[in-house]
């Protein structure tokens, strides 16, 4: 019987919610292919997470337990999952495209002589063939990609590609099978220390109603002033895409995106931001998104409510004046 294995992610015994999106993808694929859906959770002390997952509509949950799996290392995770895959032989292995997964899944696939179609946003079933859609060129183009090797086929899904609230609960709890992989001494070469956050953030952008965010289209550090004036006129906060903070034009705690803050203001005004996925995950929940970009094909327009195709240096000065007028 062919099967699909979803590997969910946990940290300190808590499920990473993005895993539910991958489970939703797994359930949809199981329905389309008729294959059995199973899940696995990897770590030390993961029975709680396994129990939570077992409540969903799937056939079985593997709790892969070993003291050597905490803290996370790519060596131990790849070794543990390789053993499971060799015994269970699923056709399709699905994971969320998290920082942790992208750290070990290419190693795991390579150790089995296989490949990963990474960071997918959808799938299609074309007759017997599965095709996975992923963004290319930072979202400017999409690609349909297929496997040209034998199973197991590894796929990671982008954050937000499937809806976590679409996960179907099971009629009864699925069986949980505890697996204790053998991880020999010497397999683990990295010695990770505690996870930490850099010095406490001075601004909490999550509380802002209005955010004016600048990207590389602002061109020079001195131009950031223009965006600040707009933010001030609107009574909002200034924020930025990553390259602006990397360059030190704004402090790191003003960065929006997967490695910065996640915000959902009433208004998010993006100036000269292309709309790479790592930026979008940090602001797509905004109630209204306005994008000003000179490139009519910039991916930011895919999620904008209001779009202005044009040079921000032409549009922002009169915009500041109009806002001031409107506010009286």
């Amino acid at each position, binding site marked *: 019987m062919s099967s699909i294995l979803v590997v969910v992610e946990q940290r300190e015994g808590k499920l990473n919610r993005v895993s539910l999106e991958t489970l939703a993808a797994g359930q949809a694929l199981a329905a389309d292919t008729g294959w059995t859906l199973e899940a696995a959770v990897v770590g030390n002390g993961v029975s709680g997470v396994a129990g939570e997952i077992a409540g969903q509509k799937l056939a079985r949950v593997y709790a892969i337990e070993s003291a050597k799996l905490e803290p996370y290392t790519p060596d131990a995770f790849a070794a543990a999952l390789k053993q499971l895959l060799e015994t269970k032989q699923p056709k399709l292995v699905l994971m969320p495209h998290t920082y942790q997964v992208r750290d070990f899944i290419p190693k795991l696939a390579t150790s089995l002589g296989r490949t990963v179609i990474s960071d997918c946003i959808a799938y299609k079933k074309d007759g017997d063939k599965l095709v996975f859609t992923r*963004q290319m060129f930072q979202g400017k183009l999409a690609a349909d990609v297929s496997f040209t090797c034998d199973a197991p086929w590894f796929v990671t899904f982008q954050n937000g590609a499937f809806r976590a609230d679409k996960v179907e609960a099971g009629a009864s709890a699925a069986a949980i099978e505890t697996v204790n992989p053998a991880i020999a001494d010497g397999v683990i070469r990295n010695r990770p220390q505690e996870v930490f956050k850099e010095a406490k953030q001075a601004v909490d952008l999550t509380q802002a109603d209005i955010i004016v965010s600048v990207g590389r289209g602002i061109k020079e550090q001195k131009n950031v002033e223009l965006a600040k004036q707009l933010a001030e006129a609107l009574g909002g906060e200034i924020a930025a895409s990553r390259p602006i903070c990397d360059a030190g034009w704004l402090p790191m705690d003003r960065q929006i995106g997967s490695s910065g803050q996640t915000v959902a203001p009433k208004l998010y005004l993006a100036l000269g931001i292309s709309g790479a996925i790592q930026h979008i995950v940090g602001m797509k929940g905004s109630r209204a998104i306005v994008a000003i970009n000179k490139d009519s094909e910039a991916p930011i327009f895919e999620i904008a409510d209001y779009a202005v195709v044009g040079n921000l240096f032409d549009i922002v000065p009169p915009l500041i004046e109009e806002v001031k007028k409107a506010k009286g």
Partner: protein
Amino acid sequence: MKILVCMKQVPQKDAPLKLNESGAWIREDVSYEVNEPDAYALEEALRQKEKHGGEVVVITSGPTRAGQVLREALAKGADRAIHLEDNAFVGLDAFNTARAFAEAIKDEKFDLIFTGLQSDDYGYAQTGVVLAELLGWPHATIIMQIEKTDGGIQVKRELEAGYFQFVDMPLPAVLTIQSGINKLRYATLIGIKQAKNKPLRKVTLAEVQAVLGPNLQKIEKLYVPQKTKNTEFLQGPAAEVAKQLVEKLRNEVRVL
């Protein structure tokens, strides 16, 4: 320390991309640049060499035009370059690209291999980690800092949402470098001049062919993504657009 930096030539960020009828992108008439995270990887290698001595070697694969990223790297201070030169290399998946690189460097002894954490064009985020596995070396990804220690190195990994983690690891190792790890330098005129006399080894497809297999994945077609959201485009002269936008902010978004 002897460091290898893997670099990729990608279309410039602003370059308009055209598709042909079979759904492939047209590589001709496009301006290219170095993949951004790779530029940071090179910079980091140069800084490590300045601190600890050693050698910085850069490697790329692709047609003749891809040699430009190597010349730029040599001008910035890399000591020598390796070019796997053939148009066929652009069609390889991450697994095969890593195999070709591993074969091309099999007689060398590097302490560290750096790659960018992913490419700006295809964004697979795999080649570095696959290469580590093929070589049997440890790896760490999304690196924001590297310090030499007694037994090896200590790296700072970036995690999601502003979290980080220090990891101690032995050498040799593969690291995938995140943009922003350092500040990039420019090539100097002297550097550009000196680059012309630095060694550049060319590797043909035939030299590595024996280790390549069939690609394990295939791009069926590329296309412009369909827009799903109902976006209102505001048009007209700048002053007019500014008025319209403020009207929307007042009456529809209701933030004014």
